[in-house]
């Protein structure tokens, strides 16, 4: 029971960051939620191991990235059906969609490897050594990926538009 309470607290606290990390990696919002949920299910299944991990967040982000890579390798997504069938108009979600599109566009031009490094460093706020552990690469490779990614982002037109608040 204590494990379950610990997990509930951890999942509740990390949910927004996991969803948003997945979105920044390039998933549409609905898929980002599915990905975050799949990540937490795996965490729950292996919770004793996750709890004992030297760096829990790095461990969980590794699970997230594995799920992300698996899903894109298979290009298969399980639909998580809605709880009920709405039979009346829903609130307009255009703004949400526009935002999700903008996020995807903003990072889509990065290579997958550079995008992963950027999200882990500048959103998940992992250190270079943690990123190296998550991605199983050398710390020097993390540095070079981040450097290249920042240079590319500096000249990204979509990011400049969004940053200026001119996006509809």
């Amino acid at each position, binding site marked *: 029971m204590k494990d*379950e309470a610990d*997990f*509930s607290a951890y*999942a*509740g606290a990390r*949910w*927004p960051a996991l*969803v*948003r990390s997945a*979105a*920044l990696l390039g998933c*549409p*919002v*609905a*898929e*980002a939620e599915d990905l975050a*949920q799949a990540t*937490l*299910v*795996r*965490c*729950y*299944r292996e919770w004793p191991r996750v709890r004992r991990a030297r760096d829990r967040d790095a461990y969980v982000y590794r699970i997230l990235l594995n799920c992300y890579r698996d899903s894109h390798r*298979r*290009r*298969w*997504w*399980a*639909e998580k*059906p*809605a*709880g*009920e*069938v709405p039979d009346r*108009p*829903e609130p*307009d*979600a*255009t703004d*949400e*969609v*526009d*935002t*999700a*599109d*903008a*996020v995807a566009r*903003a990072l889509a031009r990065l290579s997958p490897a550079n995008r992963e490094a*950027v*999200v882990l*460093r*500048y*959103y998940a706020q992992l250190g270079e050594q943690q990123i190296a552990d998550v991605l199983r690469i050398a710390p020097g490779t993390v540095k070079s990926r981040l450097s290249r990614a*920042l*240079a590319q*982002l*500096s000249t990204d037109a979509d*990011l400049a538009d*969004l*940053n200026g608040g001119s996006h509809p």
Partner: protein
Amino acid sequence: MNDDDATTLLNRLAERVPVGAAPVEEVIRSGQKARVRHRRTTVLAVAAGVAIVLIGGFAVRQALQPARVTPVAGRPDTGPAAPAGTRLVGIGQAAIAVPEDWGTNQTRCGQPQTNTVVIDQGVVPLCAIMGPQTASDVELQIAPEAPSNFATATPTSIDGVVAMKTPLRCTSEGSFAANPYQLCTESLWVQQERALFTVTSPHASTVRRLLASVRVHKGYVAVPFTYSAGATRDVRSFTEAARAEGLQVQTRLDRTSSSPAGWIVDVDPAVGSMLRPGATVQVTVSSGAGPQSGQGTAPPATTTAAACPLTSNVQRVLVTRTAAAGNGLTFDFPRRVTVRDPAAISQVVSALCAAPPVPRGAVYHCPNDIGPYYRLAAFDGSPKPAWTVDIDATGCRTIGGIGNLGRWTTGRMWHALAAAMGVRPPTYQTLAGHPSR
């Protein structure tokens, strides 16, 4: 751009991603099921291991071989022996024996019209089904994970390989109150092969008999398919899948196909056929030079209805999809898609306006209504939509929101919508979801 800029920017972007409440309870329920499945699989695997040891060293050597046999070029393309009067259809090394006289993909709206195997089904036009299911079908699907309806499945072993089987379920289909009928179904999932076999029939004995014929044929592999896994039906995906199974691929160009370049037109032997690794599969591929390349085979345009209040002069159309609970449907694209291409919007509006109206006072049944429907909201600069249309993808397949009368969906409408949403290939089966009973 420096580190601080990047952090600020990513956080600003991230904050714009809407996030609901954490589904902790749902995660825990799913996690508990996953733990149970893991334990059951482990126990069964240990039991199977003990049995193998008791059988003897030869069996052990067989069991310890890699899952895939090393390709041997030039070996004859003959599959394993099928029981008399049957043919084998499979995924990976797992195959089911179906009667020789059964067809393939003989379905209408996903419902078998005659006894049939359903595998790698391509374009399936949506249409109303006005009668009960009287035929049987065996559906093969690629399933990397346990399907959602496997919560009550029990572990079993097939030729030493762990599998999960759902209990036989027969239900009375209530859509035809005057003529109720029974439909039975049972599924078997061979995780190692990512193979899901589902048999559905009005007769329980047929379901049991067919599903009991599933075997794991070590030393053979099925001609793969990629479509049900959500991958595009292009030759590269197929070739990768075939080579992963140890098969060789020879391609031939078809310059008359209307499919986009690189898409598969034909596979010989057919997908699901069991071969020895090293055997060659002939694949006919579209060169993209045929008519309507890149757009699939669009149904012919029909006359636009006279009174249609929908306007195509809008900035964007937001398409949202909703599915009912518990259907186990899978889709290959997001729930929400924004269409901005004026030409695509115009095509959709034109097709919607051309849809035939449902006669006033019409009485009709709506079988197979499994939930997914689409809402199209058009915006022309105002936060309030200029118009909103609801499209029921299954069941009655009607359109609401175009004037006062409902309309029937059409193939042209589905095609235009799929193309506008960027669904490639624009299949109606994809839009209706991939049902896993």
